[in-house]
């Protein structure tokens, strides 16, 4: 507890919040796959703001693991690459097992998410929500993207929204904040990128209080080069359909 007091006094926060504000109730999961050039900066920023960070190193072949350790995150390293969904599930289980955080957030390692958006989402979820999803289409729609990408994401949001539950304006947004009880019920069976629709399906059960929060995504040259190509939406759709065929529809 002494350390905590000390840390509070010396805290230098570059986020627009007073130093007195504590984020001890939140742990942030960062999935890392070969992001050595940027991951250190992203995690340092989160840690510097006083957030706990669990970084899931998805069997990176570069120096990402060292960067994570240097930046001061709790590192969980996969022995083999498990894909985005596999890494997120690992992060969730690590958060449940190793921390008593009330809220669990997801943050991209490539620097396209804004710390200030996450902090706003934490303030929002404390008002009594179960899930806060980032949306690129809410508010003043600051995120710049091509018309094709915008159309496909809008279409995906509509397709995934069929059925009951909360209507979302965005699909596959990586910035999410979820309460502990909801995380404990998440079971991601997709290892690859199709996890996003599966996760959204499990996070928007009718009994949850879900809210969207406008976020600003920075599509830098780095994140664009690393990000998924649009054609990957075909993979995601095919995975989702075969999954439903094989396992039947979830109740």
């Amino acid at each position, binding site marked *: 507890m002494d350390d905590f007091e000390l840390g509070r006094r010396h805290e230098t926060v570059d986020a627009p919040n007073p130093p007195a504000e504590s984020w001890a109730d939140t742990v942030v999961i960062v999935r890392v796959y070969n992001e050595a050039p940027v991951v250190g900066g992203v995690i340092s920023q989160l840690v510097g703001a006083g957030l*706990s960070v669990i970084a899931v190193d998805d069997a990176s072949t570069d120096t990402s693991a060292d960067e994570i350790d240097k930046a001061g995150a709790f590192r969980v390293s996969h022995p083999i690459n*498990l894909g985005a969904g596999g890494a997120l599930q690992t992060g969730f289980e690590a958060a449940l097992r190793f*921390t008593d955080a009330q809220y669990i957030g997801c943050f991209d390692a490539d620097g396209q998410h804004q710390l200030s958006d996450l902090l706003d989402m934490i303030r929002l979820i404390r008002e009594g929500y179960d899930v806060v999803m980032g949306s690129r289409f809410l508010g003043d729609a600051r995120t710049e993207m091509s018309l094709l990408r915008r159309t496909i994401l809008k279409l995906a949001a509509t397709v995934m929204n069929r059925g009951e539950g909360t209507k979302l304006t965005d699909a596959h947004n990586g910035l999410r904040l979820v309460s502990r009880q909801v995380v404990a019920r998440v079971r991601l069976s997709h290892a690859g990128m199709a996890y996003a629709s599966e996760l959204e399906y499990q996070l928007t059960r009718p009994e949850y209080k879900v809210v969207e929060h406008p976020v600003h995504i920075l599509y830098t040259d780095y994140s664009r080069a690393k990000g998924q190509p649009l054609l990957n939406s075909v993979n995601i759709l095919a995975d989702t359909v075969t999954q439903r065929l094989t396992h039947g529809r979830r109740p």
Partner: protein
Amino acid sequence: MIIKYLLVPAIVAAVYLSLRARSSLRGQARRKILAVLTVIAGAISVIFPSILQMLADWVGVVRGTDLLLYILALVIIYLVGSTSVRFREQEARLVVLAREQALAEAEVRYRTQGASTASIPLA
């Protein structure tokens, strides 16, 4: 042309059944029966080639070899589907194993090297 009415449902069934193929005991037993029947049917069609031609004439296919080709195509479609499902199940087990290993390794590392370097308090 009875064959048209046989092939179209057969191809749909092959895709559907193969994707639903789970490693249940009943499924395994069915596969074994199917394997035995295949051997018997193969032997008969080799010893009495005219039977295959008779069958082909009956369902409206010109040659017996064509009928064999159609059956072969259906078998391949079924195999591709059920193999991919098998792979997927195997992959799911591998994911669970790798995750357990990663979490155990992380826990040991932080308990022995001290949690001071990490920013999270171990519960």
